[in-house]
């Protein structure tokens, strides 16, 4: 991936609406043919970022660079990017074929060429034979496919997708995730994808950009983001985790819940307050007397592949995933291997 040249570069982008800062000094580049996901809770600024790239919003400060050229003030219809909108925004007065042909007609392409390309697109999104249908007669998933076809037919350099699967049911979402990913690989187009669904982001992306409150918290591959979250917010947002306040005693030794734990992190200094993150599946349940921590099982939920137990140790309740069930009320010991203890700096207040 990393050999590919940079396509889009957001340089010190900030955006204010009526005195409220929605984006605060965003710096981000997107490489050619990359599948990048902007991930974050609603209101974190991910959609605004996408709209700035699409040309629908103008940053208050900063520049948008496209292949080295400044396109900050370029109107949307001159940009070589296309967008798949939330809830599709298909044109209800046009049928499926005319919706897809919309961009091509503007380019004054010949009729034959338009027909050829539209048919190719209908095939690509598995909607051959639907050309004459009215868009209102299509299901949500079908409309989604047409919206994608309508954008892709223009052969954009970058496809922007704003929560494109948000309105679909779970099963359809999963199918479409796979289809989108394979379409992206097949066509070799850069995808910039916005979602609040961390699972979707982990499944599809080459690179995930985690955002909150107008800031970028972490940029990395799905694996890095999951395994080495940069702070408690990312850890909490990506997957489930236990986050506990602790103190870094010295390199490779952290203290929390009154117990010293060996870990693999270093460079925090001595006796520094830190956030400690442990994934629920990384906690091992042992006999009462042999764990590093001792606690009481407060509740048990069956989750399909595993049980989720809430285990109270002193003043902290741990969430633990395990395939073996411990009855409520029983005393257990807990142990965590050093590799699974993630140490991070406590979060700045503003990014919480």
């Amino acid at each position, binding site marked *: 991936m990393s050999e590919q040249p940079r396509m889009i570069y957001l340089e010190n982008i900030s955006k204010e609406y009526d005195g409220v800062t929605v984006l605060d000094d965003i710096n981000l580049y997107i490489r050619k043919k990359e599948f990048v996901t902007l991930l974050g809770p609603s209101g974190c600024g991910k959609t605004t970022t996408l709209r700035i790239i699409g040309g*629908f919003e*103008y940053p208050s400060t900063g520049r948008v660079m496209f292949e080295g050229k400044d396109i900050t003030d370029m*109107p*949307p219809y001159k940009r070589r990017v296309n967008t798949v909108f939330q809830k599709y925004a298909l044109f209800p007065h046009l049928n499926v074929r005319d919706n897809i042909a919309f961009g091509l007609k503007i380019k004054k392409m010949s009729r034959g060429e338009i027909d050829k390309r539209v048919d190719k697109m209908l095939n690509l999104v598995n909607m051959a034979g639907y050309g004459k249908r009215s868009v209102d007669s299509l299901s949500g998933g079908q409309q989604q496919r047409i919206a994608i076809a309508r954008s892709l037919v223009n052969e954009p350099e970058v496809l922007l997708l704003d929560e494109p699967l948000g309105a679909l049911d779970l099963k359809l979402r999963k199918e479409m995730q796979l289809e989108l990913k394979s379409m992206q690989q097949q066509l070799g187009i850069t995808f910039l994808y916005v979602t609040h669904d961390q699972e979707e982001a982990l499944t599809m992306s080459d690179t995930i950009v985690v955002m909150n409150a107008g800031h970028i918290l972490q940029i990395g591959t799905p694996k890095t983001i999951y395994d080495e979250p940069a702070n408690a917010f990312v850890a909490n947002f990506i997957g489930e985790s236990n986050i506990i306040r602790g103190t870094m005693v010295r390199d490779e030794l952290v203290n929390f819940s009154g117990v010293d734990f060996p870990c693999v992190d270093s460079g925090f200094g001595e006796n520094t307050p830190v956030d400690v993150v442990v994934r629920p599946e990384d906690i091992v349940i042992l006999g009462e007397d042999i764990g590093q921590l001792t606690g009481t099982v407060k509740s048990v939920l069956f989750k399909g592949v595993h049980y989720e137990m809430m285990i109270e140790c002193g003043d902290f309740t741990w969430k633990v995933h395990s395939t073996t069930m411990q009855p409520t009320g029983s005393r257990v010991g807990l142990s965590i291997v050093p590799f699974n203890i993630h140490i991070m700096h406590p979060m700045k207040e503003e990014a919480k």
Partner: protein
Amino acid sequence: MTDLQLPAWAPWAMGIGLAAFIGMVALSVRRNHGVKRSLFAAPYTLWMFIFTLLPCILIAYYAFTDANGHFTFNNFSSFWDSNYIMRENLRTVAGDEMAATVARGSVNVDTLVYSLWMAFLCTAVSLVLGYPAALFMADRKMRLGPTLVVLFIIPMWMNFLLRTIAWMSLLEDNGLINAFLQWIGIGKMQLMYNQQAVLLGMVYNFLPFMVFPIYTSLSKLDPKLAEAAQDLGCNEFRTLYKVTVPLSLPGVISGITMVFMPSVTTFFIPRVLGGGNTRMFGDLIESTFKTAGNWNLGSALSLIMMVLILISLSILRKADPNGEGGGIV
């Protein structure tokens, strides 16, 4: 009026206005950024300023000036006391003593009170007749709504003045209703030229404006709400006045507005069906402008009317803060 000529600057003003209009449209289309679409409303804003706001300001201006353009409250004094000017003139000619013999003329205030009372009656009757009609129209089981809306609109295609005149044929001494009454042996009755005839004419003309908004808001109601109420143990009547009626209130309010307002100011109906016996406020405004040619007093009367309506509207709007009342559209 015919002696007034277009002023020399009129063509220029129109030319500049037109150029500004075209310029603004062109400007708003040429702009790259979608945001500037709000400029599309510029010609309309200009239009509404010239033809709605400016005229309102003019009414206020004329209301507070006399025929020579000097500031005065006399027009309002004349509203309160129609003999005011006469008395003041007498005072300058013959002194205070003679002036005191002229009693207060209450005709304008009386007319206003009477008009408000008639408009109130008309609104009340329209509501009583119109609510059930709207309710039955919105009845999903009968599926009559859309057809009935059209059937309510069609009579309005017959000229409003002629529709009112037609009632004369029905109500007059030799009219159809009296003929019928005579035939069944009750004998003739005086049906025209009284308050009831005016009320009938008003209700007849304005009833659809009560029915439409109520129907619109009723047909927007989720039928599940009524079902839920019944599920929770309300019988049909309780459901009606605990659920349906309160939820249709926005429609009722806009219906009341749409009936009350034209009722207070109508001048044709009382003139035709009331035979000039019952004068209403619209009638008064019209004759002050057209017959007496007193624009200043006429403006003062219009201003009073407008203020009264705005006050009552703002009170009504309180009950419908979202302004969701369905219009006739």
